[in-house]
């Protein structure tokens, strides 16, 4: 093993060494800087796990409780670290359990490399035990996928996989490796990272004409409005974005995946876009004269009714993915390219400006929203607890320094609306796919991706029960994740829609929960459940100060609604405050 390791660590040497496909895979992971693998073994991936036995010192493998948990953990890791998440699963059910996470990572542009075991190549197509056609099942939900049937392909395929996953618009890649290829020995001559594939251009060529035209539009605008999305974070362009916003003086609003790219309390940050976003950004979308969309894709939850969306505005769209231009909203000036490069070029050409009157309009709408919605949500004087006041207390204790991982539903909207975020990569949520059950496993990965930071998973009582088996992963990995369950004893978002649009016909949204504190105790995780206003702050403090994981359940009011709200099929300017 000693000698073998030495030879392997010398990729430039011409000598070759005979190794198995499994060892070549693990060497590739090490060469790509993999720190942690989230996985679950099984028959068809056993040779890889056998090789992993000798790599325990170099690769940290976290045994999850379900492959879906594994891939969500990989996503959480990728989101907070900015690196590629690595996931292992076996063939058949192991592979199909990845599908939800792949779809989630695909729609939220999360870089992942998933390795699945596959039956022996000679058994492909024979309905062998635990055989499933994972390549075809995952084609719509992967940026790229590939089946390896020969060990000699492994180094090159893995280098392509990592390159594709992290370059351009990132996304999930799945590599399916047949068992024979895992076992097969071959002459290995080292690992060469990939940096070019002739048919793949991750970054479109930047056209200065567009940047000049965009700058001209911005410079003559009276009411410009910036919308930013996760592209700013994925492109690691937070500084460039901040410089652009500050020089241009343009009020800027975010999609939920863009949250935190500039701090919540930045004077030009005017809040959240979309269905449950802030009042001003939604209403004024239909008043701005120039809209500058940066690294966002005009999701229907952001735009509401498209034919009444910003019709008066000229639209500048900065995106690394040319297929996003004109996909949903017709662009006036397309600025194709990596915003880390296009933003500084644009900033250089725009005039330093401020728009005090225009900005005041946003703040006036804020005032209306505060009076109509926010005050009651964050500072209720009496009555049952609200989700918002819990988040408000959390903000005071974390000072906006924590990573907030959210699941899907009402608590997600409340947490994303009200959580204070000082830093980028602080908001981990399932945005595009809306995957309930995302938060608990994603929080595990988030902690591995940013071990020095506090990770708080805010989860509803419904979503928690979808992946609560990952408490076992937390217990065994001994990591520190704070679990904050906002329990309204309902599948709250669906209930809200049923109340508002289905005449209070509460169809199967009444959900019972187990004793979450006892459940946590069964996993040796300390827990507490509260329902009194006076306990919120002290309990959150106890949770945050506790060494190790902690589950805090807060019983909140049952039938609270998230407002403002743009009802489905309505224009953003028809946003309702109640």
């Amino acid at each position, binding site marked *: 093993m000693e000698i073998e390791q030495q030879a392997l660590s010398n990729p430039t040497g011409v000598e070759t060494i005979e190794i198995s496909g499994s060892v070549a895979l693990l060497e590739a992971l090490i060469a790509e800087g993999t720190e942690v693998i989230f996985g679950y073994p099984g028959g068809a991936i056993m040779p890889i796990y056998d090789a992993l036995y000798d790599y325990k010192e170099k690769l940290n493998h976290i045994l999850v409780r379900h492959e879906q948990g594994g891939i969500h953990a990989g996503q959480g890791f990728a989101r907070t670290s900015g690196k590629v998440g690595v996931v292992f699963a076996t063939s058949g059910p192991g592979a199909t359990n990845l599908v939800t996470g792949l779809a989630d990572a695909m729609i939220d542009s999360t870089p992942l490399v998933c390795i699945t075991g596959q039956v022996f190549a000679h058994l492909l197509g024979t309905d062998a035990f635990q055989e499933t056609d994972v*390549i*075809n099942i995952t*084609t*719509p939900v992967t*940026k*790229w*996928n*590939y*089946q390896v049937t020969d060990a000699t392909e492994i180094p090159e395929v893995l280098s392509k996989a990592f390159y*594709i996953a992290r370059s351009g618009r990132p996304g999930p890649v799945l590599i399916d490796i047949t068992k024979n290829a895992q076992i097969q020995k071959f002459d290995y001559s080292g690992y060469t990272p990939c*940096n*070019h*594939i*002739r*048919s*793949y*251009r991750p*970054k*479109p*060529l930047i*056209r200065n*004409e*567009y940047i*000049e*035209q965009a700058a*001209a*539009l911005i410079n*003559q605008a009276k009411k410009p409005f910036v919308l930013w999305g996760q592209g700013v974070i994925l492109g690691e362009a937070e500084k460039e974005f901040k410089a652009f916003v500050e020089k241009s003086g343009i009020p800027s609003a975010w999609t939920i995946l863009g949250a935190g790219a500039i701090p919540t309390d930045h004077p030009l940050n005017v809040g959240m876009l979309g269905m449950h976003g802030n009042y001003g950004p939604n209403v004024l979308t239909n008043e701005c004269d120039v809209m500058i969309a940066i690294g966002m894709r005009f999701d229907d939850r952001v735009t509401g009714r*498209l*034919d009444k969306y910003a*019709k008066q505005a*000229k*639209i500048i769209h900065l995106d690394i*993915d*040319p*297929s996003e*231009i*004109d*996909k*949903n*909203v*017709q*662009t*006036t*000036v*397309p600025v*194709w390219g990596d915003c880390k490069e296009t933003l500084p070029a644009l900033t250089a050409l725009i005039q330093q400006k401020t728009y005090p009157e225009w900005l005041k309009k946003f703040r006036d709408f804020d005032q209306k929203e505060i009076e109509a919605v926010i005050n009651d949500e964050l500072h209720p004087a009496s009555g049952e607890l609200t989700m918002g006041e819990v988040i408000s207390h959390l903000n005071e204790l974390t000072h906006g320094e924590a990573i907030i991982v959210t699941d899907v539903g009402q608590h997600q909207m409340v947490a994303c609306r009200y959580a204070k975020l000082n830093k980028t990569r602080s908001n981990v949520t399932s945005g595009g796919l809306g995957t309930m059950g995302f938060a608990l496993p994603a929080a595990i990965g988030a902690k591995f991706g940013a071990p020095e930071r506090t990770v708080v998973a805010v989860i509803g009582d419904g979503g928690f029960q979808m992946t609560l088996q990952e408490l076992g992963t937390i217990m065994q990995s001994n990591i520190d994740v704070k679990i904050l369950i906002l329990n309204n004893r309902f599948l709250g978002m669906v209930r809200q829609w049923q109340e508002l649009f289905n005449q209070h016909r509460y169809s199967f949204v009444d959900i019972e929960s187990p004793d979450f504190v006892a459940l946590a105790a069964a996993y040796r995780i300390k827990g507490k459940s509260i329902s009194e206003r006076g306990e919120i702050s002290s309990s959150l403090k106890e949770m945050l100060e506790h060494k190790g994981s902690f589950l805090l359940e807060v019983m909140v009011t049952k039938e609270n609604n998230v407002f403002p709200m743009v009802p489905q099929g309505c224009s953003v300017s028809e946003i309702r405050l109640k």
Partner: protein
Amino acid sequence: MDSNKINIAPASLSSGEPARAGTDGGRDEAKQEFTITVYTENQIGLLNRIAIIFTRRKINIHSLNTSPSEIESIHRFNIVVQETEDVVRKLSRQIEKQVEVLKVYFNTNDDIIWQEMALYKVPTDIIAEKASVERLLRENGARAVVIRKDYTVFETTGHREETDALIRILQPFGLIEFVRSARVAIIKNSDGFNRKLREFEKAEPGEDVNENEYLNKGQRIFTM
């Protein structure tokens, strides 16, 4: 056709004229036949990856031809759909985004020269007996590929209407079997792909490879 083309010449900015004609994304546009030409690597599974871009939008592929191109290792797809230009542009961009796709073009029938090949199997005795049939076949540009005692196979190439016409003609004479190939199409205004491929092989392809519809270098060519 160009109603939703975006004119972003600097002049349009100063004129104050919104450059966003067809702001509903061209949804009212009429559907017509488009031929999508795709240059790809020769990769297992890529056909499925391309096909699902159509099927996820519930769009039927009218005709599909895939075959090695004139360039070693590069495959060429011809895909025919009946759709609006707006939809075809979105489909094309999503196809070109696939890792193993080099380039996508989409064209109306005016932009291309195309052919489909058809084979017709008819009983030999009828052909031999009836001189009129032979004349009809000749008039329709068909030629005999195989003549056997019991049947004869004729071949013709042409547009759909032409190959269809011959079915109708042969039907009364006991047409036994018919098959037609997918459309193959040559783009009138194209320099082929050889030079482009060499550019693609560079880490930083030159500007001319990064054609761009907004710069009007070829009306229906877009790429990054």
